């Protein structure tokens, strides 16, 4: 067996031995079944394998919006809520002890005394730490892939983009957790700091969206809907937009990375997914494209979103690796 093979198999066994892994997989299976239970009828759609039927003029069997609606449920609820929030929290809790436990007295010695360089060992363990997210997302996507074939009638392999994107998003956070775990050897410190970083990323995204909306469209979102800004106010927002964007630019783009799925996926007839189209179709019964909404969803190129996040991740990983290699065990 190769050294990578030994660490890979050990990581799989670690996951197998953690109850949270199975709990997450169980919930994923349940969520997948719930998804599968949504079907289309001649007059609308049904939930719970026909238990609740909803009549809808635009979303029904054979309608062009059915496939997009079905994908929207997957993307908005299952990916954006379940996979990229709840499952990631469970993944972080499960994986948080990996490095602190490995570095505990008496644990690291038997591995570090083997003919494997510390950098290589660190890299292998780091990469294998992504297995939780990878396996969970892949298993879930297989369910969704089958569900789409059954409910929409076509095979859609582009939904598997969720696997690298969710894993990538998890890796940004995993890097932070590994660095803090190595620095402090504390599971709690690692978990807390990754939560703080994650919340910061989310806040930075909210602030950036707010600033962009105010400076580009001259409107700020409020509870009552939206408030139009005067030209001078809009100009002020424009002036400070760069400052407001700074945290977003420097932190990893967790939300945007996951949202790339909506850009990468291709629906029946090689159509692109349109959030405004599916929203208007669901709410008003008539699909209508809102270019402003779609433009805000597609702001920032995939290269920029992934590239700038990877720069952050690489810097954190390099620091973590440096700490790991210099540490006395």
């Amino acid at each position: 067996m190769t050294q990578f093979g030994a660490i890979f198999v050990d990581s799989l066994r670690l996951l197998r031995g953690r109850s949270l892994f199975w709990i997450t997989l169980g919930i994923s299976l349940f969520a997948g079944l719930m998804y599968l239970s949504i079907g289309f009828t001649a007059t609308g759609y049904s939930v719970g394998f026909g238990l609740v039927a909803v009549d809808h003029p635009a979303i029904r069997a054979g309608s062009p919006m059915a496939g997009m609606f079905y994908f929207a449920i997957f993307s908005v609820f299952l990916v954006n809520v379940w996979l990229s929030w709840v499952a990631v929290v469970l993944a972080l809790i499960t994986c948080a002890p990996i490095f602190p436990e490995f570095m505990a007295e008496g644990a690291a010695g038997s591995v570090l005394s083997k003919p494997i360089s510390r950098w290589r060992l660190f890299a292998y363990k780091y990469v294998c730490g992504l297995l939780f997210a990878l396996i969970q997302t892949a298993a879930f996507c297989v369910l969704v892939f089958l569900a789409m074939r059954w409910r929409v009638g076509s095979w859609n392999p582009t939904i598997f983009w969720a696997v690298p994107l969710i894993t990538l998003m998890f890796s940004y956070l995993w890097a932070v957790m590994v660095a803090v775990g190595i620095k402090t050897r504390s599971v709690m410190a690692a978990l807390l700091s990754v939560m703080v970083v994650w919340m910061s990323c989310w806040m930075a995204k909210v602030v950036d969206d707010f600033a962009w909306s105010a400076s580009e469209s001259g409107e700020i979102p409020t509870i009552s809907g939206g408030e139009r800004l005067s030209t001078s106010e809009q100009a002020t927002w424009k002036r400070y937009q760069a400052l407001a964007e700074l945290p977003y630019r420097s932190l990893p783009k967790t939300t945007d990375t996951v949202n790339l799925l909506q850009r990468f996926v291709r629906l029946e007839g090689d159509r692109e997914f349109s959030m405004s189209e599916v929203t208007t179709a669901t709410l008003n019964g008539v699909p209508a494209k809102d270019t402003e909404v779609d433009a805000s969803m597609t702001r920032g190129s995939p290269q920029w979103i992934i590239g700038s996040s990877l720069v952050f991740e690489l810097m954190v990983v390099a620091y973590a690796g440096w700490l790991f290699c210099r540490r006395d065990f």
Partner: protein
Amino acid sequence: MAIEIESLAKRYGRFEALAGVSLSVKSGGVFGLLGPNGAGKSTLVKSLLTLVRPSRCQGTLLGRPIGHRATLAKVGYLPEHARFPDYLTGRQIVRMSAGLSQMARKLALAREEMLLERVGMATRADDVYRHYSKGMRQRIGIAQALIHDPQLVFLDEPTDGVDPQGRVEIRRMIEEMKAEGRTVFVNSHLLDEVEQVADEVAILCGGRMVERGRTADLTRREVSFVVRSQGPLPFELKAAFEKEGWLVGADSIEVRGEAAEVVQPVIDALRARNVSIREIRESRRSLEQVFLEAVNRKEEA
């Protein structure tokens, strides 16, 4: 030489854990490194195995510079308070060790069976590590240290927390390693354990080497014979023995010397006065005495 340290130093801030230690360990024997807690024993071993980055290090391990990573393929290690992943079985721990040592799968499987048998874990090898007793954990630790057929084996406090029967077993395993031609480096503060297995010992105290030599030589430095009489010694005999410079008690005489001849005049004198002899025994310094003297000397210095 299995280990040749010219100078090894390690500082943690202001604290000097190892102060330029030099040490040689011959191939194919059992070497015991003794020392009180905090003496620097584990730091020394960890420095040799690259677990600790020494402040200064000159020397060789199996003929290659210390820190040469490929050489570690010929080295086995059981850490102090060894802990392995508790979700693995004993067999999986040994297998993982083989993988990290880049062993060929076929060879690893063959050695794995043989070693689990040898350490007495063949029947429990598929149980999860967290269900093992301390003794079982040490046995698995020894098996993983030996899986890749190392030339040099470091055992850091191998009998720590192990029951007496387990200690006997571990001693037997160390003797088997020696019989196979491996060099075994035992790190321990349990002196009687080391005395029973080590051919050579060194005593480390406060990061400095304070004594070293063959175990037999160190304990032979003060050999004496003790003769005990049945009942108190007659007064005139006592006075005569004391005049000879022997150590005389109420019913005992201690004569220093390595050869049995030195004690013959005592026996003759006792028999000439019809004093019954209850016991004659050879008395050597124990390693514990050697250790305590060395440590005290260091502290006084």
